[in-house]
């Protein structure tokens, strides 16, 4: 691993990595089970530098912003490095957002360059919002058919400058990325992350989960997500390791990739982990009784012997068949993006497959705590990473209070949102809005949220305000969307849901017609943003002088209602 204390920026560190391990493979790219290409560190450099030169020739300068909207693939990482080489700031956006949402964030970020894939550009280019985003001046599109009309964009593959580009150095305090943690419908929350943030986070994470040449990381979480950016790009690259891209998320190809590539690490969201658990459990249930008994006995032996720490060679020997399905080289499954149920984590650990459960936020620079597996604890999210100060604010009688974090990995603030930044980072401490406590062993346990949002099992952050746009024009006096747990505090972070609160026009009753209208609007939302219930409230909503709803006060009043009686199905 490179000594990151010597570097000032992501670009500088990756540039040295490309020179350090020229013959090592850094990227494997497969499509539907068929390997399409392997790229060495030298070849990565040979592909990135002509793009950097082209960007510089087109006027892209230090501090300029370039956005990437792509699925996980080699050209994502090559483009990102080219942007960093030019001293640019990267704006990685979620390819799953709708075109109008992507244009909103492109406008907010001030990106002048957009790098995207042809299927995504086909939808983006015809969106009416394009005309409102004049800041995006250059668009590069990958994998476009030769005869395609690119609607003003240029093919990525042809963006090759000749000659050596100039490496533009950046300081640790300079912006590296603007990462949107949410805000496509309400206030865009563009987390401004510095090069120093990433360098510090990478040192902390790799001290517990190291990479080395020969490691193969399976990249499934979208690379715009803080976790994959760190462990599916920067982390492996500065250690000479390799990243595997599949170009599909179909479960059968993901399963196939583990033995095929002998994967070392993978990051998954709880939804995928639970799906794997379901598949494995079904296989165990199908075992004939005698084999099943032997399996149970071996699993119990493994459980006893690995109580204080994982012993991978032993687990692989004892539970050979279960491990073979994972390729036999798996060091750990990193699980993140959302809260994971302890029984799912325990299921894998009992099989001798360590699960690196942790807790983090984009605002804190990915991970804050992580389970170091000494010993494995399914009921906590681990201890703070080196360099992270974590404290519990205003703890109640059970020791539970708001988790706050201070470290060199904290974002500078939200782009163009000084007020929101001031509310979120107070005296250098990040107010996470999550509730937790430390146990006697110094491990953090989480107990619900203080903020009006949910995190789905797919790892999607959904802020209630962001969903309200879908209900604009509803024939009611006023309405508001809440996370149900914000109204009725719960100590659980599983199965979180949104509810729509409506105040009817005077003299009107809640009708089937209105319910259908709500259901229709709801179905237009992407599945994870949908509301799960309606609350009909008879009182005027508390408003500020500028007629904005005072959500905290309204939630307090709603909280007096009985949840089961107040919420009706959509």
């Amino acid at each position, binding site marked *: 691993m490179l000594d990151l204390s010597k570097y000032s920026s992501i670009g500088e560190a990756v540039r040295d990595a490309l020179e350090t391990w020229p013959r090592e493979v850094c990227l494997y790219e497969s499509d539907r089970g068929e390997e399409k290409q392997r790229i060495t560190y030298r070849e990565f450099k040979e592909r990135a530098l002509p793009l950097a030169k082209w960007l510089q020739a087109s006027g892209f300068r230090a501090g300029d912003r370039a956005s990437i909207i792509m*699925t996980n693939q080699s050209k994502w990482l090559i483009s990102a490095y080219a942007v960093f080489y030019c001293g640019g700031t990267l704006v990685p956006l979620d390819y799953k957002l*709708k075109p109008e949402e992507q244009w909103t964030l492109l406008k907010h970020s001030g990106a002048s360059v957009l790098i995207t894939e042809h299927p995504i550009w086909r939808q983006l280019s015809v969106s009416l919002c394009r005309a409102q985003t004049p800041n995006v001046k250059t668009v590069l599109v990958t994998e476009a058919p030769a005869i395609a009309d690119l609607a003003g964009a240029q093919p990525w593959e042809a963006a090759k400058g000749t000659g050596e580009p100039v490496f533009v150095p950046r300081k640790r305090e300079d912006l590296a990325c603007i990462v949107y943690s949410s805000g496509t419908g309400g206030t865009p929350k563009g987390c401004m992350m510095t090069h120093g943030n990433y360098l510090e986070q990478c040192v902390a994470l790799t001290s517990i989960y190291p990479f080395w040449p020969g490691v193969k990381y399976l990249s499934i979480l979208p690379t715009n997500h803080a976790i994959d950016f760190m462990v599916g790009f920067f982390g492996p690259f500065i250690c000479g390791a390799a990243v595997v891209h599949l170009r*599909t*998320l179909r*479960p*059968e190809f993901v399963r196939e990739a583990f033995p095929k590539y002998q994967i070392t690490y993978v990051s998954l969201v709880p*939804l995928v982990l639970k799906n794997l658990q379901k598949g494995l459990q079904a296989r165990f249930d199908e075992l004939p009784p005698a084999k099943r008994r032997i399996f149970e006995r071996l699993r119990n032996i493994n459980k006893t012997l690995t109580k204080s720490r994982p012993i991978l060679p032993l687990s692989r020997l004892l539970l050979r068949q279960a491990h073979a399905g994972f390729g036999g080289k798996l060091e750990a499954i990193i699980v993140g993006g959302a809260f994971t149920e302890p029984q799912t984590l325990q299921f894998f650990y009992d099989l001798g497959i360590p699960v690196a459960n942790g807790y983090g936020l984009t605002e804190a620079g990915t991970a804050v705590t992580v389970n170091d597996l000494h010993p494995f604890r399914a009921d906590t999210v681990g201890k703070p990473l080196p360099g992270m100060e974590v404290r519990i604010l205003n703890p109640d009688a059970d020791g539970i209070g708001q988790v706050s974090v201070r470290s060199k990995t904290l974002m500078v603030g939200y782009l163009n949102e000084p007020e929101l930044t001031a509310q979120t980072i107070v005296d250098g401490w990040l107010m996470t809005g999550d509730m937790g406590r430390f146990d006697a062993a110094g491990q953090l346990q989480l107990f619900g949220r203080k903020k009006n949002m949910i995190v789905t099992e797919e790892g999607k952050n959904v802020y209630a305000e962001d969903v309200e746009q879908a209900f604009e024009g509803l024939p009611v006096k006023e309405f508001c969307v809440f996370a149900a747990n914000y109204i009725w505090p719960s100590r659980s972070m599983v199965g979180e849901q949104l509810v729509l609160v409506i105040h009817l026009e005077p003299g009107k009753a809640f009708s089937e017609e209105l319910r259908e209208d709500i259901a229709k609007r709801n179905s237009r939302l*992407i*599945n994870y943003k949908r509301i799960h219930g309606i609350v009909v409230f008879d009182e005027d909503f508390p408003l500020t002088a500028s007629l904005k709803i005072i959500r905290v006060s309204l939630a307090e009043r709603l909280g007096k209602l009985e949840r089961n009686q107040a919420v009706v199905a959509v």
Partner: protein
Amino acid sequence: MRTLEQTTQEILELATKHFKAAPGSLKAQDDFYKKLGIDSLQALELLSRLENHFHIELPDYEVQGVSDFKTLAERIQARL
């Protein structure tokens, strides 16, 4: 060559069988996430079944954001 109606009908029958829904309960305009109570991974599994059935390849991006049977049928029809 199948008509769009035939393709839609075959998708509905396959989804009914795969997710053990009540026969005749699924309609073309139904949102399959909501109607079947499935998550995004289960939807991907359904796509793989549909690919095998229709002998086509349906890249993930083609079905990005699609949540109703009707649109799904149109995307499949375009590749038949």
